[in-house]
């Protein structure tokens, strides 16, 4: 369920690192808890996001949920497909429905994140 090449936060985000670029999304657990996702609010490219601070938000029919950035960096690209089709977050949260790509400011921050196994045991699964 939780790919081993991703790192996870206790706030239910994931990050995939390739070189100094990190791709960020929300976990399957997060989309499941939210239910039908109807709206995604993401930062503009060029924005600096800080580890543990709000990166944007996702909204389901019933609720608004903040997304917290797993690491610090500059937003390179946002997944504009989600603007028109936020329901993709329910269908493929670990893949096509990534949220943003950022340029990592400090690769050392990655060591604070959870492995797939640790995240899964955190969820109690």
């Amino acid at each position, binding site marked *: 369920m939780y790919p081993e090449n991703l790192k996870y936060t206790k706030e239910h985000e994931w990050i995939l690192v390739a070189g100094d670029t990190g791709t960020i999304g929300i976990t399957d657990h997060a989309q499941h808890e939210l*239910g*039908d996702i*109807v*709206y995604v*609010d993401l930062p503009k490219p060029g924005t600096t996001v800080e580890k543990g601070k709000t990166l944007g*938000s996702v*909204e*389901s*029919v*019933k609720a*608004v949920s903040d997304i917290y950035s797993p690491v610090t960096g500059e937003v390179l690209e946002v997944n504009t497909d989600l*603007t028109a089709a936020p329901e993709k977050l329910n269908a493929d949260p670990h893949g096509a429905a990534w949220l943003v790509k950022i340029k990592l400011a400090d690769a050392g921050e990655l060591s604070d994140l959870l492995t797939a196994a640790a995240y899964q045991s955190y969820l109690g699964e």
Partner: protein
Amino acid sequence: MQPAPALQKTPLNEVHRAANAKMVDFGGWDMPVQYSGILDEHHTVRNAVGLFDVSHMGEIEVRGPQALNLVNWVSTNNAAKLQVGQAHYSALLYDHGGFVDDILVHKVADDHFFLCVNASNQDKDYAHIVENNRFDAQVENAGPRLSQIALQGPKALLTLQKLTKTELAPIKYYWFQDGEVSGTPARIARTGYTGEDGFEIYAANSEAPRLWNELLQAGEEFGIKPAGLGARNTLRLESAMALYGHEIDASINPIEAGLSWIVKLEKDFLGKPKVAEMKAAGAKRKLAGFQMKGRGIGRDGYELHIDGAPAGWVTSGGPSPTLNINLGLCYVPVDKSGVGQPIQILIRNQPVDAELIPTPFYKRAK
């Protein structure tokens, strides 16, 4: 710190859990918010039929020769106009004109009225009615012994007809009949909170799980699904029906809420002087519908601005699954309440454009 009191459970609690429903604390009740998903359940009710456990709702029985006098003293609509077997929407008000609750009044007999009230208000409502019972009517808090199941959608009649000898088609909207469903005594009312055709069925707690399961079986050929409070809310919002704690509460007067049609000034009732005063002078604020124009979803409690200044708030807001727009209800100053009025809703401190539009947002084809 006091430990939180245990959540109250309906007789269907185990059934919901067995069906893997997502459960939430709803005003102190452990209730299903969704089963298959809010959007799926919403569309199922609009297009086929959905089944809701609304056993958390309260019921109050008023009996005796003075029953009508008490009901008409504590509620705003004129129960003297009801015929046996007829129901209407009404309200309990405080002296100051604010809402104790909004209710349904059913006339069972000349000396027997049956009130359906909101779950989290039932104890308050019962106390309020008893306190104002200067007529020697018998008042019973019947919520603890009764369950309520709502069967809603275009296939509700066909589903329920399979389980009852009571002829359903002749029951008009906002009328009811006492009969049997699956062999158990039940009050069958053609009422609902979804904007669709449907029935609300009242029966003894002990019968609720069996009724629930038999209704699901009966509706299988029509694609019935259990639906939770999430879909109940999106459905009632599209139909612009008030929800206590959102559009109405103790600080809101029926005139402001657009409910002057349930306030009958030809009779006396608690709160009448204040309501009459506001009706004569005109309300300063008014409930209105809005549609989001900019990106974002205006939600319950968000502040709204008109011409750059604070002007009101959103009472309920969210996505409309049927219309595929983001909409809601809000209070705005009367002189800025016309259809087409531009407003800005503060979403995470950013003003986002919206516009007032007519309500109800959705009306089923007859």
